[in-house]
């Protein structure tokens, strides 16, 4: 069914049910009042007549005759006739119910001929005066309506005739609001629940759970949401195929490019064994170039992975400060050869979310770059800074060397792939992709990478990453993926 028809029918049904409830309640209370009125009109005069007769019988024929007369009432099931004398004593010593006694008390206080009616309890009482001037009260107690309908109607219909907003009308309003509430809730759920499911599925796809599909529960609805679900599944199929194809392509390209290099390396090893002494220098050169080619292929593939988002899994929550430490420790080892040191200071415990390996590589590019450009015997300083003013905050990693710096006008170009500056020192170890990769990695993680000449000489690269929101539910997932997950990733990456 079309969604708009559905919404229409639901609203319509809601309105019908709510107004039905309203009308029903009115009818119920109305008929109850009607009932009471009819009963009163019917029995009021009769009781008056009986009271006169009974008083007459008592006076003229005595209690025995009266008892016989009253006994005839007992033939009617549930109807009881009482007679109280001036002292409040029941003439035949029968026990009466409390509402009856209450009414008798009330009437005894009054004077003359008076009729009292309790429509709710179905009691009519009449104060009569016999010839000697003695007051009596005659009570006829009719069977009352059942307790259930009684209390329900009392609750809803009491004081209806007053025409003022009372407890009862508030109650009626509550019932109407309640019924309307139930309908609206069901309707809202009916519409919102599948949308929630679509949303969570979309989120899962965005987090690379590409097997996610909308289930049958939504698809069988037959409305626009179901159609959306089917379209979603179609789209998910397509994305899954494309991403898988892309992954395979990258893996194949990597394999295809590296296999010849692997063979070249082994062949080179063999050539070294059989080479004349003079060839060694050239073989070293071949080895160096092979290594460069391999690094370049690796970086191009990394770039492709970052750009396609494939390399960004698994996403985990990790401490970037710990990673900086590890990178610094390794770079320090490398730097010692040139009497340089790599020092880390500043903030600790900076939890971020992302692909830890990618970020490690990105930071490593910058730190090794700094070590390479540092003047002999100078420190490379890494300073971590938390910026918590805004939520969620960010962590800023400053990597500073004390080297020659970079001509001001080429600073912005340093992040451009394969950029070669006019004074580039042949960039023996760099491929021209390192900083470009770093920037891309930080950007896809919602961060930035910038660089500038530092005050007092040297060069500083500033990396910024958003911190993982504190206390978030994701925090509990702050662990490395399990072997199973890694296995799965490894297999899908094949």
């Amino acid at each position: 069914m079309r969604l708009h028809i559905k919404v229409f029918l639901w609203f319509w049904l809601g309105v019908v049910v709510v107004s039905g409830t309203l009308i029903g309640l009115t009818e119920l209370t109305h008929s109850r009042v009607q009932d009471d009125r009819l009963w009163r009109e019917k029995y009021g005069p009769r009781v008056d007549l009986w009271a006169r007769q009974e008083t007459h019988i008592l006076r003229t024929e005595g209690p025995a005759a009266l008892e016989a007369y009253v006994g005839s009432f007992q033939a009617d099931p549930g109807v009881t006739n009482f007679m109280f004398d001036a002292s409040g004593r029941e003439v035949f010593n029968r026990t009466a119910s409390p509402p009856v006694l209450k009414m008798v008390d009330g009437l005894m206080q009054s004077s003359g001929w008076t009729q009292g009616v309790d429509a709710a309890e179905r009691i009519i009482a009449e104060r009569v005066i016999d010839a000697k001037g003695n007051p009596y009260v005659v009570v006829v107690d009719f069977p009352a309506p059942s307790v259930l309908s009684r209390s329900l109607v009392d609750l809803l219909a009491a004081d209806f005739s007053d025409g003022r907003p009372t407890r009862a009308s508030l109650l009626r309003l509550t019932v109407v609001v309640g019924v309307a509430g139930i309908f609206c809730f069901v309707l809202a759920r009916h519409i919102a629940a599948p949308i929630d499911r679509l949303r969570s599925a979309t989120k899962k796809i965005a987090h690379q759970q590409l097997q996610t599909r909308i289930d049958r529960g939504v698809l069988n609805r037959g409305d626009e949401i179901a159609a959306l679900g089917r379209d979603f599944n179609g789209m998910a199929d397509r994305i899954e195929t494309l991403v898988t194809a892309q992954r395979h392509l990258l893996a194949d390209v990597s394999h295809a490019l590296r296999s010849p290099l692997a063979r070249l390396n082994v062949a080179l090893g063999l050539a070294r064994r059989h080479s004349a002494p003079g060839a060694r220098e050239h073989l070293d050169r071949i080895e160096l170039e092979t290594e460069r080619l391999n690094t370049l292929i690796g970086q191009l593939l990394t770039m492709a992975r970052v750009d396609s988002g494939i390399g960004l899994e698994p996403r985990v929550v990790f401490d970037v400060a710990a990673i900086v430490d590890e990178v610094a420790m390794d770079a320090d080892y490398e730097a010692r050869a040139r009497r340089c040191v790599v020092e880390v200071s500043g903030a600790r415990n900076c939890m971020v979310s992302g692909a830890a390996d990618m970020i490690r590589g990105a930071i490593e590019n910058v730190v090794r770059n700094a070590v390479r450009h540092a003047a002999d015997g100078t420190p490379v300083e890494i300073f971590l800074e938390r910026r918590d003013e805004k939520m969620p905050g960010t962590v800023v990693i400053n990597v500073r060397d004390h080297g020659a710096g970079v001509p001001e006008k080429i600073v912005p170009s340093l992040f451009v792939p394969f950029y070669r500056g006019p004074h580039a020192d042949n960039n023996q170890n760099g491929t021209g992709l390192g900083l470009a990769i770093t920037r891309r990695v930080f950007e896809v993680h919602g961060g930035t990478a910038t660089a500038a000449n530092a005050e007092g000489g040297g060069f500083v690269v500033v990396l910024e990453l958003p911190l993982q929101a504190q206390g978030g539910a994701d925090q509990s997932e702050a662990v490395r993926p399990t072997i199973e997950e890694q296995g799965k990733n490894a297999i899908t990456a094949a």
Partner: protein
Amino acid sequence: MTRHLLVVDDDAELCQLLSEYLMPEGYDVEAVHNGTEGVERALSGDHALVVLDVMLPDVRGFEVLRQLRARSRMPVLMLTARGNEQDRILGLEMGADDYLAKPFNPRELSARIEAILRRSGDRRTVDARAGELAVDDVTMNKASRMVRRGPEPLDLTTVEFDLLEALLRAAGRVIPRDELVRTVLNRPFSPFDRSIDTHVSNLRRKLGPGADGLDRIKSVRGIGYQYTLRHAPRGVEK
């Protein structure tokens, strides 16, 4: 002495070159080009070591490793694609003895093969001078190469066993990372090679937290690792 190696790699030309390269170093290379055959041959018991490529045409190298590890402890050196950290970690976690990123330098390959064989060869010579080492609730028996945490035996790979031994011997003292790489992995330390950290983290996971809920193996920033000590080592090796 000629040692038999099994190379499982779909690149037949590379296998040919490797066989030629390793021959003068005293290795006799048998090459198979798919995983199914790889498992079959590896379980034959004819070889001292398997060089296993992750990328195979039929089943993945990891699957070969899993099937192999289910039945045998024979040394495995994995060849992974360079830059793929996950493959490396997964390989080591699944019980590979070492890994080498492809393309590799053949000198390095033969050095690593040598290192692994020396280590697994140690196993037999160690049997003679059996000894037990115990720190807190962890006991290791060098003769049976069994490690227990309390009464519960732990399943450690060869490298993890050697790593634990090094850490237990120096319990309470910090061992620098480069020293661990040299003594446990039998190779020179090179920065940015994180395999020792992976081994430590695998070992940490298998050992579980200590009685006080903290990691038994502590990372000491900028230096290396330390097995935290609550009581002095009890067992003394004979």
